[in-house]
């Protein structure tokens, strides 16, 4: 049995199903609704990401779960225990919540060594010294920092501090892990590396985790479920593939990955969730088959979202749904060509295969993959 699962297995919490439950969370700053009626739940052992730009309320939500912020309405329950319920006058102080938290700045205490940092939560819990040493050694091995145990925080690199922070959060086997944009201070390569590492460790240890970030690539890599937030509200909940392929509105569409977004109008509903949408540009209007998002009825205004990889560009005219345009940019990226195609007054982003050999100035015909053309709420 690996170290991580050993740690996780000793967890005798028996609540199944929804482990973290957030209901109707509201947080006001003056008149500003920083978090506006947010509800969600996280199953045991799963990894949830709150995704959105700064100011969307994701950090406030996280802090509320941690108990570092109070809330104005709603309820937070973890493992069946009510943590915060202002209506009933209930509030559990943060140090009693049994939550491990990794902060954006790592918050490794500079006057202690790595081992002392990691041992701290166990000392607070009055664990016996011998056991402390053993558990600290185990968890440092898990995060790959065994060598650095006696070093001071100031002697660690950013990535190493990050791991130390994670070790410290995990070592007391908390019931919940919270991450507040922990990777945003690392450089790109390290970030990509740590994403995978974090996910691996979390999976091994099996602790329920809630992760906050503005980086959609991170969210896609690490999460079991993603919640996209904007202006204090939830825009969409779902797994990575679902969020990516089936964004419910223009906002989510634009936030996750890259998308071509145009205004359009639903002209027909051909089957549940399918139909036709009319898009227009200065050159003319075209009707294309598409998938219909929630709330899309005939005649409704919609935003059409098509990812660049789902736009096919060819020199031959493919038919009625083809859009005629001119290549104004073709940048060779190695594994694909980043093209911009002008269609009327709209610029399509197209990921073309290198072998197609598209060049600037060429006339091309664009065809949208109906399975990946979405008409969603504006």
């Amino acid at each position, binding site marked *: 049995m690996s170290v991580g699962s050993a740690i996780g297995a000793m967890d005798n919490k028996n609540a199944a199903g929804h482990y973290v439950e957030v209901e109707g969370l509201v947080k006001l700053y003056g008149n500003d609704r920083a978090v506006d009626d947010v509800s969600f739940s996280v199953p045991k052992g799963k990894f949830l990401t709150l995704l959105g730009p700064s100011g969307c309320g994701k950090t406030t939500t996280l802090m509320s779960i941690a108990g570092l912020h109070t809330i104005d309405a709603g309820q937070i329950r973890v493992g069946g*225990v009510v943590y915060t319920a202002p209506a009933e006058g209930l509030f559990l102080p943060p140090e009693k919540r049994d939550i491990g938290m990794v902060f954006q700045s790592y918050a490794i205490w500079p006057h202690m060594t790595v081992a002392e940092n990691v041992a701290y939560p166990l000392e607070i819990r009055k664990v016996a010294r011998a056991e402390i040493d053993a558990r600290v050694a185990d968890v440092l091995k898990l995060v790959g920092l065994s060598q650095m145990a006696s070093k001071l925080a100031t002697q660690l690199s950013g990535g190493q501090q990050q791991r130390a922070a994670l070790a410290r959060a995990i070592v007391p086997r908390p*019931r919940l892990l919270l991450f507040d944009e922990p990777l945003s201070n690392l450089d790109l390569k390290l970030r990509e590396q740590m994403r995978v590492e974090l996910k691996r460790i979390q999976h091994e240890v099996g602790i329920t985790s809630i992760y906050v970030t503005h980086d959609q690539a991170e969210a896609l890599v690490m999460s079991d479920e993603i919640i996209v937030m904007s202006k204090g509200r939830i825009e969409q909940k779902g797994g990575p593939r679902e969020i990516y392929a089936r964004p419910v509105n223009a906002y989510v569409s634009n936030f996750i990955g890259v998308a071509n977004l145009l205004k359009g109008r639903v002209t027909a509903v051909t089957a549940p969730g399918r139909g036709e949408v009319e898009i227009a540009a200065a050159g003319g209007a075209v009707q294309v088959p598409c998938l219909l998002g929630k709330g899309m009825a005939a005649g409704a205004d919609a935003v059409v979202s098509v990812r660049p990889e789902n736009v096919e560009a060819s020199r031959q005219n493919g038919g009625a749904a083809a859009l005629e345009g001119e290549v104004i940019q073709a940048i060779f990226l190695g594994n694909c060509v980043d093209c911009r195609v002008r269609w009327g007054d709209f610029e399509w982003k197209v990921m073309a295969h290198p072998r197609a050999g598209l060049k600037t100035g060429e006339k091309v015909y664009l065809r949208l993959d109906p399975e990946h053309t979405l008409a969603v709420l504006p």
Partner: protein
Amino acid sequence: MSTQTLADGGLEQQAVSRWRSLVTQESVATIVVSVIVAAAVILPLFVLVVSSFRVLDSGGFDTTWGLDNYRTLYTDRVIPKAFLNTLAVSAGSTVLATFFGVSLAWINARTNCPGRDRLEPFNLIPFFLSPFVGAIAWHNLAGGKTGLLNSWARDYLGVHGNLLNVDNLLGVIWVTGIFFAPLVYLFVVGSLRRMDPSLEDSARTTGAGLLRTATTITLPLVAPGILSGMIIVFVTSAGEFGVPFKLSAPYGWQTLTTQIFSKAVGDDANLYLGAAMSMALGIITVLLIWIQQAYIAPRSFTTVTGKGFRPNVIDLGGWKWLALAFNVTFLLIAVVLPILCLLVVSLHPVWQAEIIPKDLTLHNYVRTLDFWAPDHISAATNGIVNSFILAFLGATIAMILSLVVSYMIHRTKGFGARLLDFLCVVPVGFPGIVLAMGVLVTYIKTPIYATLWIILLGYITRFFPYGQRNISSVMLAISEELDQSSRMAGASWFTTLRRITIPLLKPGIFAGWVLLFIIFLRELSISIILYTSGTETLSVGVYYLTNYENETLTSALSMTQTVMLLVCVYIFRRVAGREALTA
């Protein structure tokens, strides 16, 4: 209140009601501290305000309500003049202190003056000494006929009469200006050192010469620092008591502080009139300090980037020797000369303005230091012991108070924090004498009256903001997340304070403690109002000697006090390192 106990992770959990969440360790500590600060700061000032509206009758015992005290402020023969004198002294000292402070700071931070690194710690020494002692030393150096320098000028240079005379307002300005120059120096030198050199470099690349860059780029950027220093010096000079008391008041030039003192314990004692005068002075000084804190201090960080780098150093060429001479001269005048004078005078039985080798004796030191000597002077020997006790206890208690207050100001939000921040400025604005009068009248009926404790209360009330500023500057640099992660790890508020916050604040705590220790060791205005037999302090001892004994005994005790302060400064620098001295 639902109670569910879960045996995991070793923590027992209870969802606690909102009421109990109010009574946390954090809120209890902050409420207690707020009450203490409010009682210590607000109460005496409130009593003073009320007293200023009570008018004393001719019998000297009864009072009636009225505005007569305020009327007397401008109808009295002496008070308006005293007010003008205070303005003159403050303005003059500010100019002098700024001149020395800015030029020394510039020489030290921006030029290639030789040996400037070694000289730097010495430039700060005047700040740590007692200006009252400085006035005593200068009186013996240049005070009319008895001045040593004057006597030498007569004997060796054939000068008729007195070459110099510091027994007047100019003398007060001279001594005050020199002793407070380090205040300006500290503000400006920090500003100059932290300046991003690329700001000047970019000016130079556009073709601006050295002088132009200095005046159009450097100067405006350090202006907030200079202005801050000037305001602090102005306010501190206005509240300075010992120097005018020694050099100008006896000869007819009163200042507001000497007048307030006389209204407190002079022949014409009328503490109600004194309270009215205190109000007049206090309002002005508090206003100035508030302006400095609220508007000027924040602007001085615009050039701070946090990265340490060497700013541009100007090559003075041959002029660098002049710069060195200037710095050394300052040190000679401000530090060496007065101390030498104290030593010389203290070795004589009586002072007759010349060195008489056959008279030299250490007896004055015996009388002021040796508790068991038959002719010891108890005000002096008590003073040493009491001052040490007060300094040690006072610095410790004040730092504890400062810690919690800083925490409250920087880690909690809301109106309480801002109010506390303002309350911390107020004691600094009021002269020590004023605050001491308030403390006296407020606490005279309590058991602490006429004990060391009332003096301790006065000290802490007046000076804890200094400690608080030291801690605050470190606390601002400590991310809040360091505390929060300790809470998330399961530690209570108090444990977090003990294991995380305080260890990280150690440099600020230590710096603040030593600063307070030194300030308490040399404190005069508060001690002089609140002392009784047995609770004299060092400065009270010096005051006693200067009133009832002669210059030589006074110089002996002054010398002792100066040596003690210098030792403290030395120890501090050795233990805390170069960066540790900030005001």
